[in-house]
C-alpha cells in the first residue's frame, strides 16, 4: 500500500479529483495549505506600502491506495494538474504500513 500526497494549484482540484475517480480511487482527503517552492512569492502594495505574499495557497490531496494503482494515479494527476509553469506543485509517494476501516475493523487492502 502507498500513500500519495499531491500539492496542486487550487483551481485544478476538480479536474484532479475527477481524473483520480476515473482510475478507480474511491476516497481522498484534501487540505487548504500554503507554501512556496520555485514559484516563490510576489510583492503587492496596500495603501502605498509594499508587502510580500510569500506563502501561496495550494491544495494538498492525500490518497491511500494499492501498490498497483500508483502509476495510474500519478499519471492522472500529471495530466490534470500540469500547466507547465512554476508553481504546479509536487506529488509525494510513500509506503503505508497499515490501514484500518473504523466502521468494520477491516485491515490492510480490504480497508482501502
Amino acid at each position, binding site marked *: 500500500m502507498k500513500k500519495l500526497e499531491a500539492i496542486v494549484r487550487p483551481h485544478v482540484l476538480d479536474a484532479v479529483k475527477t481524473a483520480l475517480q476515473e482510475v478507480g480511487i474511491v476516497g481522498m482527503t484534501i487540505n487548504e495549505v500554503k507554501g512556496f517552492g520555485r514559484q516563490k512569492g510576489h510583492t*503587492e*502594495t*496596500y*495603501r*502605498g*506600502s*509594499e*508587502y*510580500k*505574499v*510569500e*506563502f501561496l495557497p495550494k491544495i494538498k490531496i492525500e490518497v491511500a491506495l494499492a501498490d498497483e494503482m500508483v502509476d495510474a494515479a500519478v499519471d492522472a494527476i500529471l495530466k490534470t494538474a500540469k500547466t507547465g509553469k512554476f508553481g504546479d506543485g509536487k506529488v509525494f509517494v510513500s509506503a503505508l504500513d497499515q490501514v484500518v476501516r473504523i466502521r468494520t475493523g477491516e485491515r490492510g487492502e480490504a480497508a482501502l
Partner: protein
Amino acid sequence: MRKELSALSSITRNRLLRSFALGAGIAVGVFALRTLAARAQEPSPSAAAVAPAVTEPAAPAATTSTAPVAAPAAAATPRPPDPTGAITGTAADVPVKDPANPTVTEVMETVGHNKISINIVWTLLAGFLVMFMQTGFAMVETGFTRAKNAAHTFSMNYMVYPIGMFGYWVCGFAMQMGGVGAVAALGGTAPLNSELVINLFGHPFGIMGTKGFFMGSDVYDVGVYALFLFQMVFMDTAVTIPTGAMAERWKWSSFLCFGFFMSMFVYPLFGNWVWGGGWLSQLGAQFGLGHGHVDFAGSSVVHMVGGMAALAGAMVLGPRIGKYTKDGKPVAMPGHHIPMALVGTLILAFGWFGFNPGSTLAGTDLRIAVVATNTMLAGTGGAITSMIYMMWRFGKPDPSMMANGMLAGLVAITAPCAFVTASVSMLIGAISGVLVCVAVFFIEGTLKVDDPVGAISVHGVNGAWGVLSLGLFADGKYGDGWNGVPGTVTGLFYGDARQFFAQCIGTLTCAAFVFTSFYLFFKLVDVVIGNRVSAEVELAGLDLPEMGALAYPEFEIATSTGGGGALPAPTPMPAPAAAPAQAKG
C-alpha cells in the same frame, strides 16, 4: 433503497397536496370576504342622505379648537378613488371657518403650517439617512482592519451611537445650539435663546449655548426636537471617525471616556462657534470678514473635528505592533474584508444625501437640488482621481484608496456644496482624490502616525480642504443673509478675499482647538487608566480579551498579517481565565 425512496416521495406528495388545498381554501375565503366588503361599501341612497346631517353640526365646534380640522365639505360627498392623484388635496383640505368665504389669514396659516411641515419632515428624513451612516462607518472601518479585531472595531462604531447620543442629550446639544436663536426654517425654535458671551476688544464672542440641557421642558418644542435629532446624528458621525484611526489597539475603557468627552464638550463647543451663533460665525457681522466662517454641512464642524481628534488619538496611542520595520518603513497590514469596506463606502455616499441636502433644514429651499447633485459629483471626482493616482503610482487601483477617494470628495464638498457649481464640485472632488492619497502616504510614511483606515487623511485633511475651497470657489449665488450678513456668500475667485480669510481662521481654530483638547485629553487618560491594550492582547486580537466575543468564531483566523516577516511571532490566545483581568486593567 427503492422502497424508501418511494415512501419518501409519497410523503412529499401528500404534503404538497395538503399545502395546495390549504392555499386554495384561503384564496377562496379572501375573495369571498372582499366581495362582501365591496358590497357593504357601495353607497346606498339612505347613507348619502344621512352623512351631511351628521357632519354639519360638528364642524363649527371643531374649528374653534386650535387643531387643524377636516373640512366639512370633504365628508359631504364621498370622493371616488383617485388613481392619478390629480384630485387629491384640494381647497376642501384647507381648514376654514366658512368654506364659502375663506379669509386670507386662514389660507396663509395653512400655507405657513405646510411650509414648516415640509421643512421638518425633510429635516427628519435627512437625519434618518445620516443615522444610517453609522452603519457605513462601521463597515468601512471593520473591513479595513484585521479579522482578529473585527468584533472590537465594529463594537466601537456601534456603541459610539448610544454613548454619543447620551452625552449630547445631557449637555452637548445645549452647549452647541442653546443660543442659536430662531431657526426660521423649523418654525423659529424660540426656546433656544441663551448664549454665553464674553466681550473682547469691544466685540462679543459667543462661547457656548446654555439652554436645552437634558432636552428639558423649557425646550419642549417640535422645531427644537427636530433640530436635536438632526444635530445629534451629525455629532455621532464626528465621534465615530477616530475609532478608525485608533482601531486594533485602543482600550475599550479609554474609548468610552473619549465618547463622552467628545459628544459632551469638544464637538458642541466648536459646533456652537460655527453653527450655534458663536464667535466664528460672527466674524462677518463683527469684523467684516465675509459671512464669517461658513460651513454648510460640516466639513470642519463634523469631519475636521473628527479627523483632528483621530490625529491626536493615533499619535498618543502609537502605531500598531509590526506597523513599522526597524528602519521606520511602513509595513502593509491589509484589511480583512474589502467588500464590506466598499459596501460601507456606498452606504456613506447614500447617507450623504441626508448630510448635505438636509443641512438646508428646509425642504422648501429648492437649493437642495444643487446641493445633492454637487455632493454626488464630488464623490465621483474623488473616487476617479484616487484610482488613477494609485494606478499611475503602483500599477493597480487599490480598492481601499478608491474608497478613501470617494469619501474624501464627499467630505470636501460638505462645506461648499450649497455655494458652488457642478463643475467646481467635480474639481473640488478631483483634488481631494489625489490629496487623500498624498496625505495617507505623508501621515504614514513621514509623520509615522499609524491610521489603519485613513481617517485622518479623509476627514481631517479633506475637511480642511473643504472649508478652504468654499472660500475660494463660492460663486455668490446663494446664502443671502448667511450668519446675519446681507449679500450672498462669495469666494476669493469670485471677488471676496475676506470670505477666504474667514475660512482660514475657522480652519486654523479647528485644528488648534480640537487637536490640543484631544492631545491633552488622551495624555490624561494615558496616566489615569491607559489608552492602549497590552502587547499580548494586541497580538492575539482584541476581540476576546476586550469584548469577550470573537467576530468569526467558526473560522480559524490566520495569524499572518501580511506583514512580510517584520512581525514578531504570533502569540497564542491568552487563556480565558486571564481575559477578564486584562479587560479591566
